[in-house]
């Protein structure tokens, strides 16, 4: 392992340790745990969006798969009385299945069209949830989505995971496992094919890579993760509503993209960084309520204009600025003395 690899591993372990120690550090303050719980769930959703960018597409429809995951989880637990864990997996799988069903025609559409297509699809899923009153409760919302309930934990005893402070462990744990899977995929051989497709899909096809096939795998995995985050959210919130202002509205789809870009879309920790920074800024600026969207908007624009690599990319960015400065300085040194001499 290289030195950088070690630092990276150490940082990750530190992050995980802090994540699990947070409840103790915060003296089990349910408010901050609520915030961090949502943060974890959102990070997963943003990571799923980032995972689609690996095939050079911008999906504005991850929220649509979160809707499916959330309502499927609610239906499985409330109507079919399936326990929490199987339901969590099944509902995510269901979301992935829907993605698989639409993948072939969807992935033939590229670029800006793909973005519009996914945006409208997510909106369609939301509207279906809105109008399918018998299943989803419609605009009235669905109340009483169960959480994991009391569960036996080895060495610890019975823990009631319905309490927000304890649900935190489930949310963070599941999200960590999901992120680990996504991380694995980026180290796996398949990431090489995705990269090839991202760089040039015609050439990828010409060297024998099944472009639609590998894109489908990516899309389905991303939908699984989005569905998982939706299901986690359903059990966290215990009630769901498909209003435009809810987290299933169009604006959330686009927000996710902002989270990702602000964090740095080329980095695996980008979504985590972006979500954390923007959500914590939103919490910190609670008092300046009507200016809050303005702050988020300004951050988004500034980052795109001045930090194209995002917050995680700052060190790299600074290094490149320095290099440019050095080169300029060198250039000036090389040219200017003569000029000065000439003037003098």
């Amino acid at each position, binding site marked *: 392992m290289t030195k950088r690899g070690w630092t990276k591993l150490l940082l990750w372990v530190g992050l995980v340790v802090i994540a699990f120690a947070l409840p103790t550090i915060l003296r089990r303050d*349910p*408010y901050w745990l609520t915030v961090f719980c949502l943060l974890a769930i959102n990070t997963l959703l943003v990571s799923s969006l980032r995972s689609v960018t690996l095939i050079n597409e911008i999906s504005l429809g991850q929220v649509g798969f979160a809707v499916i995951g959330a309502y499927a989880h609610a239906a499985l637990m409330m109507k079919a009385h399936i326990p929490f864990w199987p339901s969590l997996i099944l509902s995510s799988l269901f979301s992935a299945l829907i993605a698989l069903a639409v993948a072939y025609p969807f992935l033939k559409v590229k670029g800006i069209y793909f973005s519009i297509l996914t945006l409208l699809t997510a909106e369609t899923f939301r509207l279906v949830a809105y109008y399918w009153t018998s299943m989803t409760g419609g605009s*009235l*919302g669905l109340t009483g989505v169960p959480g994991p309930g009391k569960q036996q934990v080895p060495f610890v005893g019975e823990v009631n995971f319905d309490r927000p402070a304890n649900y935190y*462990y489930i949310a963070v744990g599941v999200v960590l496992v999901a992120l680990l899977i996504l991380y694995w995929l980026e180290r796996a051989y398949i990431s090489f094919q995705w990269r090839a497709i991202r760089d040039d899909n015609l050439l990828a096809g010409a060297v024998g890579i099944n472009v639609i096939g590998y894109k489908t795998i990516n899309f389905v995995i991303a939908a699984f993760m989005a569905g998982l985050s939706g299901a986690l959210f359903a059990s966290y*919130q215990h009630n769901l509503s498909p209003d435009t202002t809810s987290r299933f509205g169009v604006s959330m789809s686009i927000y996710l993209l902002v989270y990702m870009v602000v964090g740095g879309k080329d980095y695996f920790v980008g979504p985590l960084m972006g979500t954390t920074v923007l959500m914590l800024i939103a*919490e910190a600026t609670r008092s300046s309520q009507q200016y809050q969207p303005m702050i988020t908007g300004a951050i988004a624009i500034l980052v795109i204009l001045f930090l194209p690599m995002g917050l995680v990319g700052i060190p790299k960015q600074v290094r490149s600025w320095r290099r440019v400065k050095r080169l300029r300085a060198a250039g000036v040194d090389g040219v200017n003395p003569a000029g000065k001499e000439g003037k003098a």
Partner: protein
Amino acid sequence: MRSKRVFLICAVLVIGVLLFSLSACAKEETTTSSAPATTAAPSTTAGPETTAGPTTTGAPAGEVKTLKIGTIMPQTGPLAILGLAFTRAWDLYAEDVNQAGGVKIGNDTYQIKFIHEDSKGSAEGASTAASKLVNQDKVDLVIGAILESEMAAINQVTEAAGVLYAQANANIPGAPQDVSSDKPLQVRPFINHDETGPIDLDYIAKTYPEAKKIALSVPDIGYEGMVERLQAQVAARGMQIVAQEKWPWGTTDFVPIMTKLNAAKPDIIWAMVSGQANDQLKAARQLGFKGVFVSNSPLGADVFVVTVQDPAALTDVICNSVDVTHPTPEVKKLMDAWQAKWPNDPFISDAVHAYDMPWVMVQVMQKAGAIGDAATLVKTMEGMTNPGDIQTLHGPGYIGGADRFGVNRVLYRPLPLSRIMNGQIEFIGFMEPVKE
């Protein structure tokens, strides 16, 4: 291999932290699950020890404390205008009380402090805000929400923390998110405008005896129960509903809906509780509807006059909202305070409903003799069922609702009735809600 060993150490470390942290929560489980957390002791502040304000009577005694009320309303997003009206009314209420030296509850005098939080119009925003208010700010009471999903989200947090929750507004009375016996700490110091059905129908029967056919315009947000109730009330008066159209939340153009309703040739178009009744009136009149237009929403008659503009359209319009052109002295006082503070913003009639909410809750606390624990307060409130037990800006009211919602936790008070003729607002009077 070295790296494998490191991974092992890391894994052990992570699991260790997890178990340690979890064991803490299992321990806490056993200590706290038996007794719900009680509200924190209010902090004491120095201040003038007089009591006045709309609710206070009696001589000053005891210490001056702070009554902390957390509010959760949409402050950003499309519903923010409602949040604005409500929070401003609450600030004015706090000003009234605090300038008069506070409110006397039991032996102590309380200054009122509001902490406003933004629900962003979403359930997750509401629940985060509730969690902050309850766990960080340690408020004594939570008021707020507009959407049903937000109410459910708040109730979940307040119920777990043992804090009283007074819900603002109920778009859909009797919905699963409304007050009920399975939510022991949720109350509604707010009347529903669907209580106006019999009042409006009786007035129409008297004023427009030949009008029998009603066309209903219904927002598609779960009003089925309210429509059923109205149907029974209509049938009891020998009228009939000839058409009914549902429109989705967020509709701005009502011409298609009104086209269809108008096609049934109704005598009356009835716009069920919605903030867009003015747009509906405009559309109906533009399409040539000449009959009676009823709006039982909290939308002020003055709003109709300002937005519809055309006097020909502003005729035979019946409103149940606060009539700001014919206010009671108390409402006038509130409007003046508003104008003094925000001279550029017209008064929003929802503020009247909002002002009553903390006032009602304070009256309950006064009756209970302490800001006390939530369960006692709810019990006290349930007992205030005699007319006149509660004072509101609209006159004497009482707590009821058992016949409709199974629990007596809903405010009832007189409802205003106005009519617009040729662009002029006529105030008919205050009507007592009728049980039907």
